[in-house]
């Protein structure tokens, strides 16, 4: 990024009048308004969440203390996002490579547009699709098989859900949702690989795949990681798809194909909030605060990776 707004305008600023001051002031004010808003977000959330930390919660169901209540939710949130990212990341990198290096050029720009479009499909639509199309298919043909053949692994211990409303289904739908985001960012960095690196590799006799693994992938690594982090951020905060699909229970388990699943923070809020009142609302807001913290940490980490630069990038 080049520094803009040259100091050339300084002498003019002295002679300029009300208009300039007004315009500059408005711009500055808008910027400050953003800071104020963010401070307000934190303040209001903390003040509304405060009773949940300080009051005795024994009258409410789901744990005596806030910590007991939020722990399975934190686990569910991280577990679901981790699974989604594990599924989505390799596929997203492959699709990005396909668009940037394998597809015919004319097709590539259309595909890029298509991927951007998919990233904007509302999550409630993915949720509806997950529960009506994907869940029955998985429950019919995949889960019984997994339980029978891989049941010795804790992940597939079963009993296999017959409705398909499992952590696995939710994770797959989440991965479909974050895939366009990771793909879009990875494709950007793959396209930025210096042509000379690629040609040098090919000139040394590398096959296309060797060229990609030697020149394109190392160059794009940090971009892919920050894309994955952004995808993780979306998966962590994703609400409706999980709320529609998952059949939640209050427990911690790695079992991904049963009817008893840990819920996620966001989905728990969406499910309980409309019917809650009093202290329950405070407790839900407190869980929202925890979610905010988790996503904040992920975003800071993503920013750090992105700022550390594209390895071997232009000087």
């Amino acid at each position, binding site marked *: 990024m080049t520094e803009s707004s040259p100091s050339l305008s300084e002498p003019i600023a002295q002679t300029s009048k009300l208009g300039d001051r007004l315009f500059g002031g408005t711009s500055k004010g808008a910027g400050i308004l953003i800071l104020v808003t963010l401070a307000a977000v934190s303040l209001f959330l903390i003040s509304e969440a405060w009773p949940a930390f300080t009051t005795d919660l024994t009258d409410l169901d789901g744990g005596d203390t806030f910590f007991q209540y939020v722990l399975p939710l934190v686990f569910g949130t991280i577990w679901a996002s981790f699974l989604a990212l594990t599924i989505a990341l390799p596929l997203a990198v492959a*699709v990005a490579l396909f668009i940037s290096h394998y597809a015919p050029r004319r097709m590539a720009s259309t595909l890029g547009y298509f991927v951007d479009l998919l990233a*904007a499909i509302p999550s409630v639509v993915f949720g509806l*699709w997950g529960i009506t*199309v994907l869940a029955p298919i998985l429950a019919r043909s995949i889960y019984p098989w997994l339980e029978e053949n891989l049941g010795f692994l804790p992940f597939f211990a079963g009993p296999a859900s017959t409705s398909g409303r499992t952590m696995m289904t939710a994770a797959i739908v989440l991965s479909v949702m974050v895939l366009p985001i990771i793909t879009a960012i990875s494709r950007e960095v793959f396209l930025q690989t210096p042509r000379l690196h690629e040609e040098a590799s090919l000139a040394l006799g590398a096959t296309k795949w060797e060229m990609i693994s030697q020149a394109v992938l190392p160059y794009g690594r940090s971009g892919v990681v920050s894309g994955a982090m952004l995808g993780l951020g979306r998966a962590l905060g994703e609400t409706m798809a999980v709320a529609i699909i998952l059949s939640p229970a209050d427990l911690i388990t790695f079992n991904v194909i049963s009817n008893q699943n840990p819920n996620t923070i966001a989905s728990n809020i969406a499910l309980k909030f409309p019917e809650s009142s009093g202290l329950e609302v405070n407790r839900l807001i407190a869980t929202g605060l925890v979610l905010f913290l988790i996503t904040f940490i992920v975003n800071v980490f993503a920013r750090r990776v992105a700022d550390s630069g594209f390895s071997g990038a232009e000087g």
Partner: protein
Amino acid sequence: MTLLEVEPSSPERSRHQKSSITAGQLGRKWHIVIVVSSILVGALTWVPTGSVNWARWVIVALVTYCVGVYVAARLVEGRRKAMDRLMTALITGAFALVSLPLISVVWTVVERGSSRFDVEFFTSSMRGVVGEGGGAYHAIVGTLIVTALATAMSVPVGLFTAIYLVEYGNGRRLARAIATMVDVMTGIPSIVAGLFAYAVFVAAFGPGARSGIAGAVALTVLMTPVVVRSSEEMLRLVPNELREAATALGVPKWKVIVKVVLPTAISGIITGIMLAIARVIGETAPLLVTAGIAQGVNWNPFDGRMTTLPVYTYYQYVQPGVPPDAGQDRAWTAALTLMLIVMALFTLARILSTVLQPKGLK
């Protein structure tokens, strides 16, 4: 990478093919044979069940092709070429695999949503409707009002912030703080934005308050950072020479921005705004906790609950009513409507970005 058919020149040389240069190549003919046979193997999966399962067909065919092409290339061309072909197959296969669910999403929404895509759906609300009939008129009105309010609040703030960051900030501490905070804001989960708006309006109007404006505030929190980011990027693309030329002519800075910088960047800014609208118009969670759900039309965002299209979709699905089919059909049609709106915004953004692009830029 064309698949040329190169016959080994003589039988005895082909026996000693070790180097990748002298090795033979998997001819196009053989390649087609592998493709066709793997499709056929995929088709064999019909036999036990007797019904066509497209997804299984595609997946089995892909796996068979990967194995087939690797083994064939390994035998004829050697290890490195075989690896290359395998990766090509895997990458193309991943693309096909990913297309399956995405096509399925679009197809399902269009297929199931078209059954109630009629006049009644767009002209009547859910007031007094128990079973069949009814529509999403109130939800569409609500979505338009809430999104319009959110746009009206976030675009001026976002645009002016971007102007401050690019034109006035100049590396000042305040500008850096704002840029960082915009980044933080981008990462706010949508449900948290909803909780924030709820908390603000509860503090102002007492517990249980739900209104359209609260939903709009939640969407504004989500939309503003997107507008700032995209506008900032577009303003930075404006060449400095234009600013310098105008300033040299004695034009005050604010006029330089309004008359020179903004018109140059306007196409990108408008595209960014359209995409931001497309992003928030499908938000369900924040509206669920702020605007709530109502059965009838509510034109007043400052008073009472206001249904929006995504929330309507959700409730029609989870609480479909007595014969569940009618409610679920309405949910799918609402989803289809939502998707069409998002697509329309996307396409509009694309058209505007080319139409409004000033000459000589890019």
